[in-house]
């Protein structure tokens, strides 16, 4: 049964890892080494938005697996809990910006687009940094 529990956590972790790769990689590639064409940016916005959604859902997945197997949620406190809250806020912010981009970027200037991508990069980097604190302070 431990194998099944570990497999569930692993599946969730795989989704979480690829979500993290999508949100940071997609955002960075939109601007570096050069700002991408508008059509490519739109595809990247879909990727990054989906990545943030996967991050949020897989984050909840960790809790769901714990609750399913033990009837309890993970027990974290202090710095780890603060890091988790930061990650949740980043996911909310990142997903929102990606949705705004997909719905309204057609009327944005290049500078507004650049600012949106810069904010997405900042949120992704913040979330990944918080993840390290969550991992080692829990």
């Amino acid at each position, binding site marked *: 049964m*431990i194998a099944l*529990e570990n497999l569930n956590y692993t*599946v969730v972790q795989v989704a979480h890892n690829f979500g993290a790769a999508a949100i940071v990689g997609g955002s960075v590639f939109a601007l570096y080494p050069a700002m991408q064409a508008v059509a490519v940016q739109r595809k990247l916005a879909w990727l990054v938005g989906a990545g943030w959604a996967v991050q949020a859902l897989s984050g909840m997945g*960790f809790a769901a697996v*714990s609750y*399913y*197997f*033990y009837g309890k949620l993970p027990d974290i406190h202090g710095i780890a809990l603060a890091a988790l809250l930061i990650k949740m806020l980043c996911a909310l912010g990142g997903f929102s910006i990606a949705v705004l981009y997909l719905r309204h970027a057609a009327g944005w200037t290049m500078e507004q687009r650049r600012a949106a991508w810069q904010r997405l990069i900042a949120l992704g980097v913040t979330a990944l940094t918080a993840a390290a604190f969550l991992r080692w302070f829990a």
Partner: protein
Amino acid sequence: MRLFYAFLALLVFGGPVPAALAADASVTISSPREGAKSSPKREVDIVYEVTPGPNGNHAHLYVDGGEAVVLRALKGSQAVGPLAVGVHEICIKVVNKAHTPIGTQACVNVNIE
């Protein structure tokens, strides 16, 4: 999407196993003893030994229900406090890699006076 379905299938067909999971795990608090007395001027040393079993990974120490510290060492001592005057419950719970209590724990009450 297929991965998501596979995950759902695991949850649906895996079945809950809470009671059996903690079977081989154990926690022993050898000091302080139940009802031991201490002073509000000094820390309380908790001497413990944890056997995580197949499902556990490490342990969390709680004072009056609040998590005080993560115990990564499975055997040793941990100081808590100083604690305020009164009776305090000190518990050590075995948790898994995701920090979820697996149901194995030991508790002692300490009287600070």
